[in-house]
């Protein structure tokens, strides 16, 4: 499986976020997105996930399941944690497990959240909410991970867990594209600088 992007151009709100951007990311590889704020890192991740329409260029996932869109191959973790405050931690993951498959308890265990399973998500701290959001990565087999500043508001222990699962994902032949200032001990295969003229 390989993600190939050629001459991507993205315009949001009348502003050209980036143009003629090309890169590839093969199985087992990690692509690190760097660049100042507003350089289009988030837009690129959302574009790959299919949430943002690209103005021009080509984006293809070779070796993927053709009926499903690229977005349906991805685990997208944006700035928002997609948690329902009225539901408990377990109920939140149980819902995503129904969509992605996988076991909510294992996901809770993965991020040391089992003791909070029947606490309403609204009661959790920012760090715990972030961990609960990222626990979705344990659910379902989604080859392409798109992580947007995943380590924000995580403590050191949780960052180690995050780094470990990212490495495990890549080792298992998954693709990883992450926009982060903290490399979390992950050797990224390639770095894509955004912001200046296309690198």
């Amino acid at each position, binding site marked *: 499986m390989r993600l190939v992007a050629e001459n991507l151009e993205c315009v949001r709100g009348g502003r050209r976020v980036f143009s003629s951007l090309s890169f590839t990311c093969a199985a087992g590889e990690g692509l690190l997105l760097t660049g100042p704020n507003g350089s289009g890192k988030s837009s690129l991740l959302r574009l790959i*996930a299919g*949430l943002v329409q690209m103005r021009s260029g080509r984006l293809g996932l070779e070796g993927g399941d053709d009926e499903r869109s690229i*977005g*349906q191959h991805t685990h997208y973790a944006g*700035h928002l944690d997609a948690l329902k405050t009225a539901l408990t931690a377990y109920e939140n993951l149980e819902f995503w497990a129904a*969509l*992605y498959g996988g076991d909510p308890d294992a996901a809770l265990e993965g991020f040391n959240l089992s003791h909070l399973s029947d606490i309403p998500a609204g009661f959790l701290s920012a760090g715990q909410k972030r961990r609960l959001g990222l626990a979705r990565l344990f659910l379902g087999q989604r080859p392409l991970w798109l992580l947007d500043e995943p380590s924000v508001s995580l403590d050191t222990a949780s960052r180690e867990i995050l780094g470990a699962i990212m490495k495990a994902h890549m080792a298992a032949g998954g693709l990883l594209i992450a926009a982060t200032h903290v490399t979390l001990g992950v050797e990224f295969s390639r770095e894509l600088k955004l912001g200046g003229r296309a690198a």
Partner: protein
Amino acid sequence: MNSFWAILRRDIRLAMRQGGGGGMAVGFFLIVVSILPLGVGPDLNLLARIAPGLLWVALLLSVLLSLDRIFHADYEDGTLDLLATGPLSLTLVVIAKMLAHWITTGLPLVIAAPVLGVLLNLDTQAFLPLMLTMLAGTPALNFLGAIGAALTLGVRRGGLLISLLVLPLYVPVLIFGVGAVNAVLVGPSPFGSPFMILLAITLVSAVISPIAAAAAIRLNLD
């Protein structure tokens, strides 16, 4: 397919937990029907004549009130992004959410309508037709309303804008809904014909609005 039911179940559970689901809509329905006679006057015969119209307009406004809850919460906390990349196509996601919204707000309103009919001295003969027409009409109100909700996702004071977008779409549902009830009470035409057209409107809106709402959501996710 079980992700469709998962979304439906989750939305219903959320509606029940937060603010008693249809409770707010039914509360608004009760208040509007209660204050109308205070304005129009307590004359029972007058009230009996205009009861179907009042009940239907109050129903319309109650559904309108609860529309921004369909997508807004999921839009703000990022769930909609994930649902858009989920296993289910966005149109099916939208259908699941519309159905959940209809069950939690539409149905309670339909059940409350005859009770409020008593306040307006509605002829007992019209209770069943009233419920039938509302049962047939409320899905259309929810579906059409969902388009308005999806279109105004990004807008700051979306609630007001939704009413401007959606009320014109509600006019046919109102006309044939009240027409069918009046057909029983006064009616030149039999109950059947306006009721059939009402059903047709619901079916058409059931087909169009998921597609339109999904497109509107995709637009607003950008």
